[in-house]
């Protein structure tokens, strides 16, 4: 039995419409499937949970930390300052590209070893390329202890004061 290539014969208009429809359905379905697969794969790769230790640091009783004190926490990744206005927990992770800034001799501020940004003591930018001031960690008081959450950041620029 010989097979016949039906594309050899000109189709009826109804037949071509049917073919176009079927091709569109099939192709569309595969396209949607491919897109879905791509999105699912990306979502697959994206982590849903993160294995990171709790980085909340209990510093001590706030009233025992005097104004003017600077405490170095988390092996240098957090600087806790008590200023006249209250507590500030500065992250020493450079806002430029994530290197750890170091105290700069002389200026009292910080310098980044990677791209040379300079920050003032309270974290504002003195010299580029960084444009954003050093980020701050949220501070809270629990059971009378001052807690710095080194795993989170806050946009709150106001210094933390212990609620009465």
């Amino acid at each position: 039995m010989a097979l016949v290539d039906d594309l050899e014969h000109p189709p009826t208009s109804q037949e071509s419409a049917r073919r176009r429809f079927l091709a569109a359905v099939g192709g569309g379905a595969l396209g949607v499937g491919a897109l879905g697969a791509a999105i699912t794969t990306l979502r697959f790769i994206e982590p849903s949970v993160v294995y990171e230790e709790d980085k909340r640091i209990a510093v001590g009783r706030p009233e025992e930390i005097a104004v003017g004190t600077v405490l170095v926490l988390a092996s240098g990744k957090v600087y806790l300052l008590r200023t006249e206005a209250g507590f500030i927990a500065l992250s020493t992770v450079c806002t430029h590209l994530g290197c750890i800034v170091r105290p700069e001799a002389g200026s009292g501020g910080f310098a980044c070893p990677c791209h040379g940004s300079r920050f003032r003591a309270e974290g504002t930018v003195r010299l580029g390329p960084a444009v954003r001031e050093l980020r701050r960690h949220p501070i809270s008081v629990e059971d009378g202890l001052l807690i710095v959450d080194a795993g989170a950041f806050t946009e709150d620029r106001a210094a933390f004061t212990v609620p009465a």
Partner: protein
Amino acid sequence: MKSKAPTAGPPLHFTALLAALAILSVLLVATLALAPARSYFTGWRRIQRRYNTLVARTHGRPVTVGIKQVWIPERGVVDRCPTCHLSAGVARPIEGDRLFAAHPVIPHDPRKLGCTPCHGGEGRATSQREAHGEVRFRGEALLARADVEAGCGSCHSHLPTPSRAAAEQGRRIVEEVRCRDCHSGERDLRSVGLRGVPADWHATHLGRTVGDVSFGPLADEEIAPVTAWLSTLVGAPRLMAARMLAAESGCRGCHRIEGVGGDVGPDLTGEGRRPMEGLDFSAVRGPHTLPGWLRAHFLDPQSVVPESAMPGLGLSDEAAGLLTTYVLSLRAATMPLEQAPPDRVRGLGLRQRDFAADGESLFGVFCVGCHGRRGEGSKLPTLASRVPPIGDPEFLAIAEDRYLRESIARGRPGRLMPAFGSTDTGLRPAEIDALVGYLRGFMRASPEPEAVLAEPVDEALGLRLFAENCAGCHGDRGEGNLIAPPLGAPDNLTTRADSPILGTLTNGVNDTAMRSFRHLDARSLRALVATVRALPPPPMARTGWTRRPGDAARGEGLFATHCATCHGRRGEGGRGPSLRNAGFLASATDDHLTASIVRGFPGTEMPRFGTGDALRARLLPAQVADLVAFLRGWAPSPRTPIHGARHAR
């Protein structure tokens, strides 16, 4: 496809290229052969062959040639040292050979502990240069022979360290009573301190009778020094000497070590294994190694790190070497507590101190570095302000116990003085009290009243001393005023006779601004007593005298004129310490403030406002009271001290 011989065009250099291929291939094979050769012809292979040759002479067992390693997974130790140091647990030692001689007898088995925990070095490496840490980044430095005891610090991080004086005294006693007559050989005391010396060892020892050798009891005051000496016997004499030196050099005043100490300088835990990265060797003469750097740094900190605030301790070469050993012994031990040696368990688990807790030892551990061995104060390099001489009798005369306690516990904000009482690992209340007690010892003992009163009276001296020391509070003629009572007899009961005046002068009056003047010599005291006795009767009756608060509004103006230059316009500090902080104001009473203003802060730039000088106007008592009232406005009132009151009673 028709093949057509190229008629024109460049030649294809077939033969030349073939020759190039041949030559390059030969070179390549030769080069590639070098790689396995480099891996095969190694130093350790030669050494093992040499061992086998040597051992064959004595018909000993040869080793199988290959890399030998000690692997202790639970400690993360991979040590390939036995590849060359074959006698370290792998093969029979050969006496007389430098490399194959037996390891000295130590309390540990290298096969169970590994090599690098004690000796340092790069255990994974198999070439000498890399294993001994002589190649940058390719190996951790090996501890030199002189510093090898620092390796003990990898596990023994909390060896109890008595004061050197006590240990030395103990050693002398032990020699006098001839303990070593029995304690030799089997009963050697060499490492008796490793497990910790039990507090009741003396009683236990008395209970034992060894043969017919009598053991006379030690005098009670001898037990402590002997115990101190015993605790230094850990089989590492240099390490203990280093630890004792460190414990009297005040390192922990600025540096935190295993959680205890100030935060002025860098935390030194693990400093003995710090990466070389970031160390500047440009000013280091001698070897460019971590010990070399440390030694140079101890001898002259600022020559190595120009911005360092570390005081030059005036060390001899030998002392710098000992402190280097000490720092090298800070190796940030990490191990589960159940595997840790007894001293670490006591230190970390039971939170026992690894330094002696008497006042003198504590002063050595925490204060000496900045305040000096006799509390004479110092000028730290790279810092503008001076460290106050807390051993100065005049300062101690002003400072109340509670003020000293609070300053130690809460620090001096805005100054380098850390808050030693602020964390779990800081100083404990009893320790702070011991420190305060020791500080009080710097005050001169009160002179004998009879001796003082027997002195001849020097009127001129008396008048001068009165003007300098008394008039600031009591008024020029002792008439009394806002802050101090009138002195003139007969209303003032105290001043009716010589001896009560002398008593008040030498002891001060508790809880008032009247401090002890015992730092004055007998002649001065005699003169002062006479001057006070001779004061005219006051215009107002003593019964009518009360202390009245000053006027804070007037005080504000005075502050701007007299204090703001140093303490800052809002008291935030500058040349002088910050006054505007809760900690200071809470611990300083009105009387303390008054006394400080009137009498100044000896040894620092704080002037005596009570007398004035060429540069500064004298402040009148009323003005002092106004100032105190103004300062008090920043914090309502002094509060109960965080601790100490109950110990003081």
